[in-house]
């Protein structure tokens, strides 16, 4: 069961015979390895084309360059909130814990899909909240631009002023279970878990 291990620069095949998968790059019609890893051949998912080529990929369990990309659903912790923006630290990309945190920004127009002129950021997020958001652009050098303008995006964990994890009661309110005080947030609508097997929300 000796798996073939490739190092960067190794020739893996030609583009006319194979498809280049993750962990590889192509130059002049030849597929080369980009990382140190195990060579894996997978069948490319192609329903139309009967003659689908095999895909070469170099699999590396712990790869370094995992950065948030446009379209990713990320989980972040809110660091700072003012009238113009909410600054967050991106911790997870999908379900993958990132090795480094990256800064992100949520602007008022990206908090929700309707009535964007009257958004009050401090009524949507508070420092310390954990939010789920979508990366809408790479932004500038300082941070990624994020959006919570979907039902399933927004605050997933918020602490009340009394210091308890709050329960969501509507799309814009959470309640402290101990003091019963209500606090405004842009709440993420998480689909309920059924009793027979968890029905996890797909991201």
């Amino acid at each position: 069961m000796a798996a073939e291990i490739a190092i960067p620069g190794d020739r893996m095949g030609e583009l006319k015979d194979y498809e280049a998968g993750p962990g590889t790059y192509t130059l002049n019609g030849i597929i080369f390895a980009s990382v140190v890893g195990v060579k894996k051949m997978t069948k490319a998912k192609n329903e139309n084309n009967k003659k689908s080529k095999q895909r070469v990929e170099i699999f590396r369990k712990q790869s370094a360059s995992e950065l948030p990309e446009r379209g990713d659903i990320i989980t972040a912790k809110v660091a700072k909130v003012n009238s113009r923006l909410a600054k967050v630290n991106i911790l997870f990309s999908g379900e993958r814990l990132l090795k480094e945190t990256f800064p992100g920004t949520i602007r008022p127009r990206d908090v929700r899909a309707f009535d964007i002129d009257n958004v009050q950021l401090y009524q949507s997020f508070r420092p310390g909240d954990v939010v789920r958001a979508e990366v809408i652009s790479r932004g500038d050098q300082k941070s990624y631009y994020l959006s919570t303008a979907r039902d399933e995006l927004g605050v997933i964990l918020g602490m009340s002023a009394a210091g308890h994890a709050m329960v969501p009661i509507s799309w814009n309110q959470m309640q402290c279970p101990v003091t019963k005080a209500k606090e405004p947030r842009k709440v993420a609508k998480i689909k309920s878990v059924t009793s027979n097997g968890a029905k996890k929300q797909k991201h």
Partner: protein
Amino acid sequence: RVSAMAAARGTGTYRPRWAPVEKGKDDKPGKSDPSGRLDGRKQFEMRSAFMKVGAVSRATGSAYVETNNVKVVCGVYGPTSNERTSYSDKGQLSCSFEFSPFAREKRRSRDDEQLERAISLMVEEALTASIQLDKFPKAVVKVWVVVLEGKSGYLGAAVTCASLALADAGIEMYDMVSSISVGIRKEDLLMDPTEAERGSSDFGGSLLLAYMPSLQQITYISQKGTIDSKVAQDMVKLCSEGCSKLHSLMRKCLVEAERKRQAKLAREHSRSNSS
């Protein structure tokens, strides 16, 4: 116990010695030996090398390279967010080269900082062409090279070590980079000259090459002394052969390390499955 020692060893044909180098063998400059070189090597023979990855446990990736009298360690950190520079679609490589205080005969002093900065830029130049910078936009990968011991040949070892560390970190690259220098004494080309050879009165100059062996491309070239252009071309050819030899050692080192990692993951996986 033997297997533990073997596991601790990296790869290569050279086993690190802890005993001091015998006086008189490598040290006397100016002695031109017609039958061969002072340290017993043939004209085109490189010093054998020992390479190991994962030497610095805290770093994202790391490597250690040792040849006779040269010991270099490198740690790679990143990609991390870089808020200081202006926006770029490509990532950045930031190299820092440093001598440890005890690396050379004289203790490292503040006067060495200029040399270290120049070498940092040189290492950066040698490596940047091999990294797929567009894979980590806005971010920076930091490379720290420290020479623990080295009077001659540490430049080549530094670049080779850094390239191994980058591969160990999982940074996406186009190819590995290996580096070696060739000297010229009278009319003889000497592969990987020692400090004694460089210091001898009839030493004409040297050429340092950083090379991507798979893509057959040069990433850095620097030459010292007055050398005929035809001779310089021969030196470049000889250097690239040496770099290819280093490349096969680098491959062995990385493949062995990856196999160990895969085996460890497989053991952990089966353990978590059975529990």
